[in-house]
């Protein structure tokens, strides 16, 4: 499912003396099966932006299209139910939303809410447990006996059980250990690759942006500064510096070498990309050897 924002603005408590603008004139497109990362400092509007995608917040101005659905300031909630089924939202610390007595029932809750029969919802719950890397023995256990990382997997299984076409992830790996982070990001990438899910990822991890995203949107003070490939965004080092955004460690390191005169074909964003280019320049090894 493709997503298009056209001149979207959002103001909290619009029309009151407390009105606070949070988004202004945001326009971008994510193609079907796209993978967009959204970066920006705390308070830059990232979370407000993603809540527009399933119309948890409706734009104050402008228009959003998600596949055939259109969201404008006038759209009513009744029109939105079919849309919400297709947009899976994983909020920060989703494990805090677990509530059922058993893990299976917690995962099955969402689909049942959207009209799926109990039997099918339960079957989906078992399948989703496997998808997130937990075996069937977890089904009858209480979600509250699990470790933090396991609870998060259950919460994500609950979102996946609704079979969304778009997965919106708000810092999904915050607070996990490195192993857990890697497993989680690999899972999302697999869903993207194998099932064609469109992914929107809000993150502070520039390594993840470099490794997974097709495009990266940079937010600052409610405005979209740019939306382009990670290569294009991180490549402009003057712009990166003046916009106060972080860059992947490999890019930062490559920049230090280019300050000493090493020339890159294009700025490496990962350790592997950097190593590929270093080999080409390595005395006695590379194609570039003079």
């Amino acid at each position, binding site marked *: 499912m493709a997503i298009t924002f056209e001149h979207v603005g959002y103001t909290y408590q619009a029309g009151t003396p407390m009105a606070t603008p949070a988004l202004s004139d945001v326009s971008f497109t994510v193609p079907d099966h796209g993978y967009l990362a959204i970066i920006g400092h*705390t308070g830059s509007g990232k979370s407000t932006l993603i809540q527009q995608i399933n119309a948890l917040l409706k734009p104050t101005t402008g228009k959003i299209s998600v596949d055939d659905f259109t969201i404008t300031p006038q759209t009513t909630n009744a029109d939105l139910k079919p849309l919400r089924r297709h947009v899976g939202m994983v909020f920060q610390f989703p494990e805090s939303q677990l509530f059922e007595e058993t893990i299976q029932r917690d995962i099955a809750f969402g689909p049942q809410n959207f009209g799926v029969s109990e039997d099918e919802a339960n079957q989906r719950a078992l399948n989703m447990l496997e998808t997130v890397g937990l075996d069937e023995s977890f089904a009858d256990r209480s979600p509250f006996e699990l470790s933090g990382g396991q609870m998060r997997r259950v919460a994500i299984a609950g979102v996946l059980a609704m079979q969304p076409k778009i997965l919106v992830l708000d810092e999904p790996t915050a*607070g996990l250990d*490195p*192993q857990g982070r890697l497993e989680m990001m690999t899972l999302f990438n697999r869903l993207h690759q194998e099932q064609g899910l469109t992914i929107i990822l809000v993150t*502070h991890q520039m390594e993840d942006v470099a490794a997974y995203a097709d495009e990266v949107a940079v937010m600052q003070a409610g405005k979209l500064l740019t939306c382009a490939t990670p290569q294009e965004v991180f490549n402009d080092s003057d712009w990166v510096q003046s916009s106060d955004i972080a860059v992947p460690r490999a890019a930062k390191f490559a920049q230090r*070498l280019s300050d000493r005169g090493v020339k890159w074909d294009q700025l490496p964003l990962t350790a592997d990309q950097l190593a590929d280019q270093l080999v080409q320049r390595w005395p006695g090894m590379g194609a570039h050897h003079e």
Partner: protein
Amino acid sequence: MENIIEVQHLSYRYQDTDERPALDDISFTVKAGEWLALVGHNGSGKSTLARAVDGLLPFSEGTVTVGGIKLTPDTVWQVREKIGMIFQNPDNQFVGATVEDDVAFGLENRQISRAEMVPRVKAALDEVGMQAFAQREPGALSGGQKQRVALAGIVAIAPDILILDEATSMLDPQGRRDMLALVQHLREEKHLTVISITHDIDEAASADRILVIDDGKLVEEAKPAEIFAQGERLVHLGLDVPFTAKLKQALQDRGITVPAGYQTTTEMEEWLWQSLSNT
């Protein structure tokens, strides 16, 4: 330097029937003024260990001595006087309606007079750069600001030991760097001993020494550079692989001979530049 913490043969089971102990015969010491990092994957027992040191766990075997006082049910309050703890989620540790009330809470518990309390709260908030927020509601602050307020609460009671239990894991990269710089500053100024439980490679690099906990056991004890030299294995220890180690692995995979051991980014940059210039 004297040992401010001594842990001898500490074992703990959450339930008597548990087959595997949460802590299994752990012994180590911490010198006054040292920064010690405790690392290990989720569920390895590192938080349990920190709780045992703070007298929050009724451990079954072994001894914990803090500042010369052996931890027992009778001395637990004396021991806790010496330790300030900051947890992962700042929202779980606020009690006051305003920032200054919250910082004052620890002093109120110690029956400090109001005349003494007011300047101590102010000084503590100044120390962490949060004086301007004294009247604000803690819930409305950003994550980094919340952890600063939590630090102010600890500065106010002036403990000898600060334990950070994944205190930076919920912060954005800038918030994390600010928090670490602040802890480093307080440590020097107040001669604090710091124990930080962490998965963050930069935080672990700030430590003088790293203890690796796995399955409730102390499996390794070394300086950061020695631990970081383990490359890809670090992920199993609950740490990120440092960028230089990733790059070295990637170069090695491509047939380039790399120097052994851990290198800082500056050392790595120097070595690469020398190698590339060496035609």
